[in-house]
């Protein structure tokens, strides 16, 4: 159980900056998720912690020890790769056994340990098979077993679930979460799937273009996004973002007039999540638009509405019914869920409350 520190770590490939001077402390026993679109530097960050990639500048400390120049084998880490990185010429048992073998553990102890782990991940009947004879989910479990067969200081997971089908992904997600709870090992997890990040993480580091744009708990990332990027990236469907101005206590945009407690400002963006809005019958509601699309997701109905260029999505109950082109009125469902962002910097400037439905 270990703390990992990145101090002013930078990575360049020639003139291309993959990671701009970033500092990050991963606390002991934490499940930290690096989340971001492809090319944001999340995998690079993880590979530098693993020692598979050299840092251009800065320091990486594992358990307060500088590891910049240590090869991966001396860092006492375990990693699960996106393509699993299994050894195709070895049986499942040999795959799981390999880290122990490299550490000079005797044969009998190795066999015992392999069997224990195999039972834990339900592979005991497949130990003699080759990786090529396994399904995706089974390979994934072999990779996981190989990582947990010894107790490393840190677990690194590079999109371990992305090659699995949707159903298996959900099951494995729960297993990973349980495993982390059971072992309590500091874990760094890379993904571009916000759902995985939200469900697994103790903290999420949202990354973009080689920078960490927000580092916080899933709850705060969701309810208080620091900037427009995080606001738009997290949540499905994503947060409604409406450009407009604040004038004399009202946020105004085309067909939108919402009371906010904020001083006058131009070029701001109002962010509000679909579930924080509702459709009301009152004419005086702050937003008016006509129905553009209705999508039933099962547990709720997503109603997308448009007025000129403004598009707004509202999450309604599953039994909500409307017809396309119906004119609807929208109001906030709860207080404290409206976010104002500065349009030019993208930073959040205020989260303010409005009284529901009343204008």
């Amino acid at each position, binding site marked *: 159980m270990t703390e990992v520190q990145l101090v002013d770590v930078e990575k360049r490939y020639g003139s291309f900056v993959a990671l701009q001077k970033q500092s990050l402390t991963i606390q002991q026993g934490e499940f930290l998720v690096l989340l971001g679109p492809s090319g944001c530097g999340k995998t690079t960050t993880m590979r530098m912690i693993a*020692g*598979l990639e050299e840092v251009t500048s800065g320091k990486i400390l594992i358990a307060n020890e500088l590891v910049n120049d240590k090869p991966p*084998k001396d860092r006492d880490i375990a990693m699960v790769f996106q393509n699993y*990185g*299994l*050894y195709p010429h070895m049986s499942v048992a040999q795959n799981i056994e390999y880290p122990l073998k490299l550490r000079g553990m005797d044969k009998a102890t190795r066999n015992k340990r392999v069997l224990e782990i195999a039972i834990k991940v339900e592979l005991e009947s497949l130990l003699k098979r080759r990786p090529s004879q396994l399904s995706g989910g089974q390979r994934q479990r072999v990779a996981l077993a190989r990582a947990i067969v010894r107790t490393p200081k840190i677990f690194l997971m590079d999109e371990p679930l992305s090659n699995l089908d949707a159903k298996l992904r959900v099951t494995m997600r729960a297993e990973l979460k349980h495993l982390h709870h059971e072992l309590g090992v500091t874990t760094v997890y890379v993904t571009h799937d916000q759902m995985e990040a939200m469900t697994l993480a103790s903290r999420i580091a949202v990354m973009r273009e080689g920078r960490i744009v927000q580092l916080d708990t899933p709850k705060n990332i969701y309810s208080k996004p620091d900037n427009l990027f995080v606001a738009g990236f997290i949540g499905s469907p994503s947060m409604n973002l409406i450009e407009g101005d604040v004038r004399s206590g009202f946020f105004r945009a085309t067909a939108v007039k919402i009371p906010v407690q904020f001083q006058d400002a131009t070029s701001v963006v109002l962010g509000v999540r679909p579930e924080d809005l509702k459709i009301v019958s009152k004419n005086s509601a702050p937003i008016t638009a006509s129905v553009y699309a209705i999508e039933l997701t099962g547990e709720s109905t997503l109603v997308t509405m448009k007025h000129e260029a403004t598009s707004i999505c509202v999450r309604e109950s599953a039994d909500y019914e409307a017809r396309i082109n119906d004119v609807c009125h929208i109001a906030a469902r709860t207080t404290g869920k409206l976010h104002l962002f500065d349009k030019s910097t993208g930073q959040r400037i205020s989260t303010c409350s409005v009284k529901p439905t009343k204008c």
Partner: protein
Amino acid sequence: MKKKLIWAAEHALLVVVSFMIIFPIFWMFLTSLKRPIDAYSITFNFQPTFENFITVFRDPWNLGSMVLNSALVAGITVMIAVPCSSLAAYSFSRFRVKGRKILFFLVLSTQFIPAVVIVLPFFLMFRSLGLLDTRIALIIVNLAIVTPFVIWMIKGFIDALPVDSEEAAMIDGASRLRVIRDIVLPMATPGILTSSIFCFILTWNEFLFSLILTRRNAVTLPVGLVNFRTERGDLWELMSAAGVLITVPIFLMAILIQKHFTRGMTAGAIK
């Protein structure tokens, strides 16, 4: 109807091409079994004999020492070239060193030089070293010829291997050399075997350098064939017998390669 015609045309062409390639070899096998009187006759009706295969090993032909020379030169060349090339190929494939591409090009570019151009310098060098007509000289020359080719071949096989497994092994606690031993070599075995056999065949068949650099002691089989052109004329039946002796090991290896070659193509990545 049209399909059938195309099928027929295709197969006719295959038969013609196969015949053109196989017939001379077949004729050589046939001639090797003929007595001298039958050697020039175009007949299938002759008394087959294995006499020629015994004669070529007797004085004055002494094919035995040439077989030994060829086997030693080719064998030792493979044993040195393949391990060295495997390490070089791995480095070329995996390490992002500055000037890597230029270096690799330089290694390959040695293959563009016609052998005739460098045979004379080699001759002069080995004369000053006193290595003319020795197997060592042949091994050195063959290494120079074969190594770039083998590096290039094995690099191709290693390039096709997934890096994931190697990185996984390094994280599991293996050093770079351990990774090569435990992960890369087992996975690249079909490729390395194929390359070894190619390397052996190239060396085994090498003619020009052997012709110029040897006289009596280190003569190899392909050069030995020339001995059968005597004042008495070309001894076709003996030459064919010797030809068969040269061909058979290569033939067997080609069959081996075929099996491994397809494995080399299909083995590798697990996704």
